């Protein structure tokens, strides 16, 4: 519909912010921006939204995504597909572009990361529980290592202890969710041949704890990206809203 309007506009009038068409695009873009922004407030008012039957979260998300993309199109139509000349207008233009592009990046991350995590890892964890779980693993591993023979304790102190201290982010997980895990586990195999059957069993338990920790690291790395992305998206969107309000005021005032 927007593209149809654009074609009709191109025949009937100039495409730019000063025409009635352009002002219409601006009003529509602002309305859409506010409506899209409501998605963020929905999380804070989930109970009210649920009680008033205002749609499922999925519907809100889809509206947020498609509405945001449409907002950018309306904005470009409003500016006549030209780079604005004023400072305020340029700031709004940059922030709009930035917000929508980071939103699209976030959308891509939300499509890719859950799929990647589910494809190569044997465990699912909540991001917020990662420190607790690693602490639990460390506690278990330390307790187990204390009951092992000296070579295993040395091996633990040298190769495992620092890894179990806390969550680690590793770049390799962005490229390969199982990246480096097998190579690091192979060190356990070298030691295993020199141990008794009982110690081999304990080493196997330590190996499982270590592997779980590495998989939690993978979760931590990718899930952290999902949360960090919001720092690029949300503040810019809020600043954009403030500038749009200022823009509307100046339009009416002047």
């Amino acid at each position, binding site marked *: 519909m927007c593209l149809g309007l654009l074609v009709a506009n191109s025949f009937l009038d100039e495409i730019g912010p000063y025409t009635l068409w352009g002002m219409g695009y601006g009003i529509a873009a602002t309305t859409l921006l506010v409506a899209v922004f409501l998605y963020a407030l929905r999380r804070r008012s989930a109970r009210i939204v649920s009680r008033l039957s205002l749609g499922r979260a999925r519907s809100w998300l889809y509206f947020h995504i498609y509405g945001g993309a449409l907002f950018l199109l309306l904005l470009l139509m409003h500016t006549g597909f030209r780079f604005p*000349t004023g400072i305020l207008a340029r700031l709004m233009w940059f922030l709009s572009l930035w917000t929508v592009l980071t939103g699209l990046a976030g959308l891509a991350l939300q499509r890719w990361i859950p799929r990647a995590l589910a494809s190569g890892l044997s465990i699912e964890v909540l991001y917020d*529980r990662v420190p607790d779980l690693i602490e639990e693993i460390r506690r278990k591993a330390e307790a187990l290592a204390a009951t092992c023979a000296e070579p295993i304790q040395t091996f633990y102190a040298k190769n495992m202890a620092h890894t179990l201290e806390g969550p680690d982010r590793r770049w390799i997980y962005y490229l390969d969710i199982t990246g480096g895990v097998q190579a690091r586990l192979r060190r356990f195999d070298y030691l295993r041949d020199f141990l008794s059957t009982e110690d081999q069993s304990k080493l196997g338990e330590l190996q499982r704890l270590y592997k779980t920790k590495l998989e939690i690291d993978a979760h931590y790395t990718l899930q952290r990206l999902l949360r960090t992305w919001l720092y690029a998206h949300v503040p810019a969107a*809020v600043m954009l809203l403030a500038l749009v309000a200022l823009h509307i005021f100046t339009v009416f005032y002047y």
Partner: protein
Amino acid sequence: MPAKRKRHKGFFGTVALPVSRNYLNPRSHRFLFGMGMLGGLLLLAYAAADFFYFQTGHFLSNGPLSSAHAVHERQCDSCHTEWNSVPSDNCASCHEDVSDELGLYSFDNHYLYRSGDFNRVVPSENEMPCATCHPEHQGRDAALVDVPDQRCTSCHPYESFSSGHPAFEAVGKPDDTSLTFAHVSHVTEMMAERDLQHLEQACIQCHQLDDDGRYFKPLNFEEHCDSCHLTTSVATPRLPIASADRLGVLTLADIQAGNVPGSLWSYYTNPNEFRQVGNRFVSKSPLHHRDPWILANLRRLRKQVYPEGGLADLLTTGVEVPPHEQEALYREAIQTLEGYAEELRSRPEQEIQDDLDEIHMLLNWIRHDLDDPFVPLDETSFLLALDRPTDALDSQTIEEIHEIANDLAEPCLGCHQMKKLTIQRVQKDQRTMRRAEFNHRSHIIQRGCLDCHDKFGPDAFAHIKEMREPLEDQVFHDGAEIQNLPDIESCRDCHSPKAASNTCITCHQFHPSPSGRTHLVGKPKRGFHER
């Protein structure tokens, strides 16, 4: 004693990790919103500081002003009025010194500009502010006058110049020069006489560009025609002298004796120019352009047939002019009346002097009305048309008067045309396309005259080139009555989207230009609808 630990809800994974005992609320994004709000507040604070403290207005401005308005960069209120955008009055305060009282930038004037058609004037309910078509803050190099075609086509239903633009109105129509003129024979003789090598050289002998190169200087008999026409050997035919029982013309002595207004010229005319045969016939030689004796007799003959000539009685030539030239008729009539009045100034009677004072006052009043842009020209009843001949004369008498007039004006009719016993007014300025601008100088560099003005037929000028002999059989195949204007396709050869500019404003102007304001017919500005 160790504190009692809560029981686990269960375990997951190969290493039996405990399931969370409590529901984990999603992490609040309050910090993210806080960051955004802080950033937004900082920006708003900067905007406020820029506006109120630094007073540059740069942050809120939609962009730099155009070069012409750059001086107002820091003075927003020069153009902007709070809560009222940019009223046109603010523009007019500079562009028309104080305000646009004449409404030069109004739609009224746009409708009238060049067209002169009062029927096209509509109430200005849809009047748009200047900024609608001339948006500012587009950068220093922006040209405010570059109004896009869509502004025009929103009212004028033409798609573009390339497609949908109507044919030129003047093309193919007989013009109103009222001259009998053959270009081919004139060009032929001129090329031979002045040894010209190119046809275009012949064109510019008469069609001389005015100072700005857009159009041509008005044609002038003394400058362009006198060397060949109305030589000393030219005379009127022998004409019957009017008497009580005979139709005819007045002699110089009769005119002097009549002492009617407008006959002062007769005292300065050489009697030897007249050859009188008894009291029956008279002829005159040499003749002058706008010869007063011929025009006076012609006016007298016209008065006999059309006694209610009205304004026409005060004019030397016809009253049929385009709307944009009507004002000139009134001014000429006033001039004639003033001449009549001046002739009576030497009379000693006090009553006449008093009447002359009153006439002088009336003429000043009329001139004042002409100068007053709020007085529409068409509301006056000053102009009466030569509608129909008088009923007092039979058709045979009228026929005789026409014959005498034709004989009287025979030397004139070699070039001029006569209608209703009146020499028709010549359109001297050679302007044909009233609604568009055209710059001949800028075009002549790239194209010859005949590349566009090619309506004389393909053979005519080719013949001149080769033989330089007058084409007797083709002399009347061309003439001033042929506009010889190029049609729109000729313009489209160059003015197209991929070549020279073809926007509306390439040729047309919305507002009366400072130099073109004389084209405002009647000038009914804002007061027009209130009257």
